[in-house]
């Protein structure tokens, strides 16, 4: 019986590993984070940005899903260029398609690329990509202007000021989506953003690090290896399922290269 149990756990582990390997090797870019609307891989933005972007993103998607051209999604991604990487290594269209942003091809991807600087990540390039159907609306042709007007690459900007300007771009686009697509006026302000920045600076609702419980469980001297293997197997399956769930947060949209890029 004990042998059967071990075999069962081993089979579960093998299935989990196969699941992870087959789900990872297809994608050129990392999967979106659990937050989906903000994927801060450069670790450049604060908890305030996450709070604003995720809550506005969920509202936009949820509130419009039943409307014509509904289910718009605006996703923000940041990446750190390292080990000789250049901006050319990031294909915004490929990333957009992998993350399947926006239902009815009504997605918008904002991609910010950073380099490691003396005081943290420094923004070097901003790109925006719009889904196939977004280009039917007037605001889509202003996406490049939004980045220009924010003067993101002005000399001497600190992390807060850069983030605030990114948020300005985000809300300008959001306003355009509501106005042109859903005929709704969005009222927004960033007047209190400095306060939120201070308060929520290091907060994240979507911490993806492994929990300490998981590690301490594996290192526990009081449990036999059968139980530990079982725990690993179940965790692998849950992570795999979670990965599948996170991928499904995308509305299924695609894009064809409609977008703009601006460099420092």
């Amino acid at each position, binding site marked *: 019986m004990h042998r059967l149990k071990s075999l069962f756990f081993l089979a579960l582990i093998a299935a989990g590993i196969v699941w992870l390997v087959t789900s990872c090797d297809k994608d050129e870019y990392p999967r979106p984070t659990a937050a989906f609307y903000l994927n801060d891989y450069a670790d450049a933005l604060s908890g305030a940005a996450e709070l604003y972007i995720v809550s506005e993103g969920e509202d936009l998607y949820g509130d419009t899903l039943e409307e014509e051209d509904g289910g718009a999604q605006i996703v923000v991604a940041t990446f750190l260029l390292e080990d000789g990487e250049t901006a*050319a290594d990031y294909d915004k*269209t490929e990333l957009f398609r992998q993350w399947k942003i926006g239902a009815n091809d009504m997605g918008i991807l904002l991609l910010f690329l950073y380099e490691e600087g003396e005081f943290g990540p420094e923004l070097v390039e901003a790109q925006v990509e719009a889904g196939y159907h977004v280009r039917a609306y007037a605001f889509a042709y202003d996406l*490049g202007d939004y980045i220009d007007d924010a003067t993101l690459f002005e000399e001497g900007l600190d992390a807060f000021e850069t983030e605030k300007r990114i948020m300005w771009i985000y809300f300008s686009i959001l306003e355009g989506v509501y106005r042109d697509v859903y005929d709704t006026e969005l009222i927004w302000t960033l007047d209190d953003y400095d306060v939120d920045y201070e308060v929520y600076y290091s907060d994240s609702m979507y911490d993806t690090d492994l929990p300490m419980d998981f590690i301490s469980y594996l290192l526990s001297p009081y449990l036999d290896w059968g139980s530990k293997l079982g725990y690993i197997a179940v965790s692998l399956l849950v992570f795999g399922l979670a990965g599948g769930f996170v991928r499904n947060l995308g509305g299924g949209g695609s*894009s*064809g*290269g*409609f*977008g*703009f*890029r601006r*460099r420092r």
Partner: protein
Amino acid sequence: MKRALAIALACIGIFIVVTVVSVITGYNSLVDTQYDVYEMESDIEIEIAARHVALGGIIDAITGLQEHYVEVYTRITAARGLYDDAVASGDPGDMIAADAAQVQAISDFLAYVVIEDNLDLTVDAAYYDYIDAIQLAEGLIAVARQDYNEAVTTYNTSVRKFPKILYASLLGFPTSFDYWRMGEGDEDIPTINF
């Protein structure tokens, strides 16, 4: 005897049904993949047309380009001429040549013509809109070329496999499509560095 005949007829009937179903699905599949190629080709041509218009707009929006950057100006006008010829001929090969010429002309323009530092050049307000239009078109063309080449791979692979290789020749489908490549033997397509 009758039983043997019935079995033989049933086998022939099954064979005919399977063959007919296979031909129908094979034919439909070939039509789908063929039209994917045509659709992607059309997408590229639409964006090349947009870039052609923007290139003309740039020439009109800059005063002094022809006098101070003769080579760049000539290259742009030549690229525009090639595009007109390609539209007239309707040959995809000519359109690829026109695409390559446009890419070269724009790359040269961006590399050599620095508006901000050149007192001999003046631009009107529309100039920056045309640059944005070219950047926009370039992004769309790059993706459209990639999608086209993927559609061509799908089609070319499909018609080389059995039984579609039979259907393709019997039903008059093209045996292959050419890839959208610039320069002889080039796998890569040059990109414009904005």
